[in-house]
């Protein structure tokens, strides 16, 4: 069953079918070939139950919050403040790129939204201030990845739903790795610019007076982060309710900046429906496939196959990481996660790994996937904003940041507590 299913899956992927179709056909195939019971009869019920599932409401609401935030006009001011606080380091504005992305990530659940927003603000500076263009582009693309690691994160909701893992715990688990990865990115920039002085740009004018005067511009994103994430941990709100609070706060913030208009709302709504309809269709069909997978026992078969290899848990984990890195080069992350996680997670858990920890690892691997060529969504975004030269400049520019991601994966393997300390402290 395992071999046949893999072959069918590869054929369906090679045909470039929409992911929702791949999942649907796979479910039908397993149902027709491997069970005497007509599982299909439950299809309508499964689809309806998940189509109006309150937990899934969080996905479009977090997407809407991000859409509103990127139109709320706070990015410019945030960037200005971050320049004051970080640009005195060797590497100058590139630290502000990472810092602004990290902070913006705290109000947005998506990588592309983060990279696009900060990219539009920061990119004009590269020519004015004489930075090494490739490294600067790399810092923007790499910074964008923080969007899905620092909560709230749409990818974590998606993972949590597919694997029945607690979303609040996943959010908490992402905080420390997110901050560590930001620090590692900044270390990369620092090292590069100390080694190669000419990669750095003209120094910025910073002063303590300006630092304190701009501090207020960092306040709105921090407040939104506190409202959204704080309300979950205070026990006041579920992730869905927190997302609703986030939408309300983002609207209030846009209104305060005099950016809340009918066109803004309309654009945000269309962007939200476009992205979330695609994600939700995949999700409800994936959940039907999950139901079929459980009924035919495929998960157990994969489990036995991997345990039968006789590898140590670490060897198995390294093998899984390798597979994800290769898949991430050619696949969209959403497709990668939805096709593998429901089957792989039970295996990983039976090897003794924590599902929350694995969720964070999957998010870090997804970050790697959105950067690696040839299919590297964030690099496309940055290249699109730059709109000149070759896409290869961006791919070369992210190379040093790959070291930071590799280091982060290594640290996660060596010290699982990086992810698990906060959720353990709060929940266990």
């Amino acid at each position, binding site marked *: 069953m395992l071999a046949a299913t893999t072959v069918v899956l590869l054929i369906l992927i090679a*045909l*470039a*079918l*929409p*992911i*929702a*179709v*791949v999942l*649907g056909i796979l479910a039908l195939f397993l149902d027709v070939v491997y069970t005497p019971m007509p599982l299909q009869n439950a*299809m*309508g019920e499964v*689809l*309806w139950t998940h*189509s*109006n*599932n*309150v937990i*899934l*409401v969080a996905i479009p*609401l977090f997407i*809407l919050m991000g859409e509103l935030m*990127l139109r709320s*006009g706070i990015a*410019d001011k945030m960037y200005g403040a971050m320049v004051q606080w970080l640009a005195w380091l060797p590497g100058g504005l590139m630290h502000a790129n990472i810092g602004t992305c990290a902070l913006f990530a705290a109000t947005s659940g998506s990588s592309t*939204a983060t990279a696009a*927003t900060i990219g*539009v603000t920061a990119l004009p500076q590269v020519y004015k201030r004489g930075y090494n263009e490739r490294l600067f582009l790399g810092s923007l693309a790499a910074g964008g990845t923080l969007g899905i690691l620092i909560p709230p994160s749409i990818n974590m909701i998606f993972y949590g739903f597919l694997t029945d893992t607690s979303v609040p715990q996943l959010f908490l688990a992402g905080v420390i790795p997110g901050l560590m990865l930001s620090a590692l990115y900044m270390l990369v920039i620092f090292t590069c610019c100390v080694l190669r002085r000419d990669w750095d740009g003209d120094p910025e004018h910073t002063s303590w007076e300006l630092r304190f005067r701009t501090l207020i511009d960092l306040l709105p994103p921090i407040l939104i982060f506190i409202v959204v994430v704080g*309300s979950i941990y205070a026990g006041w709100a579920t992730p*869905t*309710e927190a997302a*609703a*609070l986030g*939408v309300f706060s983002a609207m209030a913030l846009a*209104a305060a900046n*005099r*950016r809340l*208009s009918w*066109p803004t709302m*309309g654009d*945000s*709504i*269309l962007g*939200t*429906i*476009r992205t*979330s*309809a*695609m994600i*939700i*269709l*995949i999700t409800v069909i994936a959940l039907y496939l999950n139901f079929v997978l459980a009924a035919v026992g495929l998960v157990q078969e994969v489990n036995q196959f991997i345990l039968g290899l006789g590898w140590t848990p670490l060897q198995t984990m390294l093998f899984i990481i390798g597979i994800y890195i290769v898949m991430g080069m*050619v*696949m*969209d992350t959403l*497709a990668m996660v939805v096709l593998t996680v429901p089957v792989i997670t039970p295996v990983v858990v039976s090897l003794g790994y924590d599902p929350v920890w694995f969720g964070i690892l999957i998010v870090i691997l997804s970050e790697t996937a959105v950067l690696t060529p040839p*299919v590297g969504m964030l690099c*496309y*975004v940055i290249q*699109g*904003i730059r709109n000149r030269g070759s896409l290869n400049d961006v791919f070369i520019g992210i190379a040093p940041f790959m070291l930071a991601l590799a280091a982060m994966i290594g640290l996660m393997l060596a010290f699982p507590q990086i992810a698990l300390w906060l959720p353990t402290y709060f929940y266990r």
Partner: protein
Amino acid sequence: MVDAAALRSFDRRLEGVQVVAEGVARVAAYIGGAFLVVSALIVTFDVVTRKLFLFSIAGADELSGYALAASMSWGYAYALFCRAHIRVDALYVRLPIRIASVLDVLSLLLFAGVIGLANWHAWFVLSESIRMDAVSGTPLTTPMWIPQSVWLAGMLFFLLCILLVMLRSIALLVAGDLDNLRRIAGAPSVQDEIESEIQHAPASPSPVVAERSNH
């Protein structure tokens, strides 16, 4: 022998239908999005009053679930016209346009099959709810046929839109008009993706004056 000119004119007539369908999908997306915004506001109100004044509106979460079902099922068609339903195109982009075009048509055929089946089973859910007079097991006791019919109608509209694009792409494939086929049914290229991301992020944010609605 099929006449290519006749096929093209068939396609042009369907194009007119698609313009209407896209208009409907866009309006549906606005309405669905408005549902989501309103339910976000209701849920916010509920959380705040629950915490501060210790009373709770019954069923805010249930309503947001129905808003999800309605806005997403009606949004599927909008995502289709935006070509946002992602495909793994690693191999596809390296194929000659002839083969890639066949895959575009195949994608739509199988999409129609899967969504058709989903509609079929969704219809059973609705008809069962009507037959049993099913209501939700919550304080709201919502008659289930109401949210379920909105949901099913959205999925049915999605199916019709897939069939429409499918018919057009078959006509264009047979007529040999592969450029237009790719435009309506192809997986977005890197260039398309870049453009749509940029459209998404408003460059050089212009100072928008907060408008007040007069209607």
